[in-house]
C-alpha cells in the first residue's frame, strides 16, 4: 500500500528493467562469466566480415598443417585452409543451428503443450504417451537414428534437432498450463466474454512461457553439442563444411603431429556450451 509510481516515461521503465537485470546478474559471478562468453562469440559472429581474412574453403597445398603463426593465427589444416577463418565461420554456423532449432522447437512445442494441457481428455492423454515415447530415448541416440535414416545433410540436421527436443517443451508447457488454468484470471476472462481460443492464446500462453524460456536457454548448449557430436561421427554435416565437430574430427586424425587443430575448435565448443549453461542457470535463478 505504498505510493504508486506516477512518473513512467516508457523508456524509463525499459532502463529500470535492464538496470535491475544487470544488478541481479552482477551478484553471481558465474552467470556474468557465461554472459561474457556468449557476448564474445556473438561479437565474433557480428564482425566476421572484418576478421575473416581467408576464404575458409580455399586450399593451399604449400601450407598444410602449419602451426599458428602471424600469417595464420590458428594455423592451417591438412588441406592448407586457414583454421582461424574456419573457426569463425563455424561459430556462425553452430550458433545459428542451435538458436534457430531450439527456438523453433520451443515455440511449436509450447503451443502444442498448452493446447493439450488446456483441453485435457483423451487427446491430451494420447499426446502425453507420444511425448513419453520421445522422451524415453536419450536425445543423442534418437538424433543418430533419425540422421542415419535420412542421411547426413544440413536440412536433415535442422529437422532432427527440432524433433529430438520438442517433447520436453510440450511437457513443460503442458505442466505449466495445467496449473495456470486454475487461476481466477481465467474465470475472469470467461466472464468478460472471451472465446476459448483467445483465452488460450492471449491469456494463458504468455503466462506459461516462464519455464519454457528457462528450458530454452538451458538447451542451447546441448544443441551445439548435438551438432558437433553428430558431425564428428559422420552423421551430421559433411566436409568441407566448416563446423566445430568436423574440425575436431579432422584434428583427431593428426593428433600425433600437434594438438592445436583439435583443441582450438574444442575450446570454442567448451566456450559456447559453458557460456550458455552458466547464463541459463543465471536466468533460471533470476526468473524463478
Amino acid at each position, binding site marked *: *500500500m*505504498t*505510493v*504508486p509510481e506516477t512518473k513512467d516515461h516508457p523508456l524509463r521503465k525499459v532502463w529500470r528493467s535492464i538496470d*535491475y537485470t544487470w*544488478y541481479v546478474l552482477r551478484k553471481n559471478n558465474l552467470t556474468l562469466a557465461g554472459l561474457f562468453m556468449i557476448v564474445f562469440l556473438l561479437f565474433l559472429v557480428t564482425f566476421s566480415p572484418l576478421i575473416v581474412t581467408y576464404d575458409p574453403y580455399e586450399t593451399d597445398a604449400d601450407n598444410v598443417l602449419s602451426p599458428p603463426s602471424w600469417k595464420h593465427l590458428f594455423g592451417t589444416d591438412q588441406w592448407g585452409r586457414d583454421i582461424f577463418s574456419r573457426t569463425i565461420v563455424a561459430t556462425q554456423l553452430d550458433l545459428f543451428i542451435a538458436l534457430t532449432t531450439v527456438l523453433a522447437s520451443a515455440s511449436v512445442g509450447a503451443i502444442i503443450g498448452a493446447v493439450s494441457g488446456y483441453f485435457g481428455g483423451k487427446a491430451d492423454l494420447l499426446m502425453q504417451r507420444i511425448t513419453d515415447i520421445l522422451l524415453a530415448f536419450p536425445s543423442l541416440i534418437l538424433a543418430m537414428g533419425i540422421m542415419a535414416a535420412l542421411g547426413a545433410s544440413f536440412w536433415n540436421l535442422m529437422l532432427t534437432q527440432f524433433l529430438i527436443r520438442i517433447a520436453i517443451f510440450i511437457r513443460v508447457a503442458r505442466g505449466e498450463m495445467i496449473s495456470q488454468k486454475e487461476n481466477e484470471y481465467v474465470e475472469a476472462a470467461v466472464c468478460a466474454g472471451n472465446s476459448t481460443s483467445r483465452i488460450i492464446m492471449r491469456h494463458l500462453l504468455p503466462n506459461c512461457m516462464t519455464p519454457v524460456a528457462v528450458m530454452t536457454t538451458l538447451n542451447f548448449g546441448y544443441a551445439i553439442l548435438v551438432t558437433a557430436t553428430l558431425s564428428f561421427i559422420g552423421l551430421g554435416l559433411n566436409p568441407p563444411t566448416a563446423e566445430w565437430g568436423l574440425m575436431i574430427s579432422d584434428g583427431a586424425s593428426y593428433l600425433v603431429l600437434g594438438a592445436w587443430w583439435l583443441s582450438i575448435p574444442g575450446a570454442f565448443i567448451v566456450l559456447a556450451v559453458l557460456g550458455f549453461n552458466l547464463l541459463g542457470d543465471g536466468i533460471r535463478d533470476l526468473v524463478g
Partner: protein
Amino acid sequence: MSENLLLNVTRLSTYFYVYEGIMRVLDEISFQIRPREIFGLVGESGSGKTVASLSILRLILPPGRITSGEVIFEGTDLLKLPQKEFSRIRGKKISMIFQQSRTALNPFMKIGEQIARIYRTHEGLSKSEAMEKAIYSLKRFRIPEAEKRVESYPHEFSLGMAQRVMIAMMMACNPRLLIADEPTTGLDVTTQAQILDLMKEARDEMGTSILLITHDLGVAAQTCDRVAVMHAGHIVEIADVEVLYERPLHPYTQALLRSIPRVDKKVRISDIPGFVPSLLNPPRGCRFANRCTKVIQGVCEKIKPKTIEIDRGHLVMCHLYGGS
C-alpha cells in the same frame, strides 16, 4: 509504570538494504509487555508489525538487519546474547505461532512425536514420559480424542485444529512470552473465537504473556489488555484497551476506528485518503502527515514527533499533544 516488565523493547530499528535503496521498516519503536498480559500490536499491511516480531526473535535475514535498539527480556538484552544462549531462550521461554500453522508443522511426522520431541529436548524426558506429556498438552488445549490424535499427521487436521496443535506445541515448555502473528486470520469466525479463548486461558492459567499481532480491530478489542497501534514503521499510540477504543488520541487511530463497519449497529464508515509513504525515502517528520486531517503545516512533515505519556500508560506520538 510498573518496573516488573517481561519484555522491554527500546528504540528498535530494522532496515532492509535492497536494490532501490534502504527501507526503514522499523524506526525506533518502543513498547513494554508485563507478565500475564495480552499485548496487541495492531496495524495495516506494511506497518511493520510482523518485522517487529521477527526482530525480537532475531529471525531477520539479509538484506534485513536490526540496526539499533534493545530488546530486554527478563533483564537480559536479547540482541546482545551470543547465538547459543539465545537459542536456549527462543522456543523455550519465548515461543511463537504464525498464520496458517499447518504449514509450520512437519508434514512427515506425527504430531504426537513433534510435541514429544520438544519435551525430550528441553526437559530431558524419556520417550514414554514425553509422549504422556504430549497427550496431556493436547487435552489441555481441547483437542478431542487426544490419545488417538497423537498418531495423526498435520494434514489430517482442519485449519482450526492445526492451529490448536500449534499452540499446544508452542506452550509445551510453559513459555513466559508467546508471540502470535495473525493466529486467527483465515480461520472461520467461530473457530477464531475458540482460539482466542484458548489464548486467554493460557494467560490466566499458565501466566503466559502474549504479543498478539493482528490487523483486526475487533480481535484486539476483545482479547487484549493493552494495544499498540503501528503505522509505517512507527508505534503511534499505546494504551489500555478500553482507553484506546474510547478515547483514541492519535489521528491515525481515530481514522482507523472510523473505517470499520459494525455488525451490532449501522454506522457510517470513511476511508483514509492518500497513501502510506514509501519506506525507502520516508519523510523526516511524522509518517502520517500526508494523510492527516489534523496536520500542522510546516511542523508535522518536517519534525519527527516525540512519544509523550498523556495519562498513566497512555502514550502517543503526535505533535498535537506536545513533543515538538
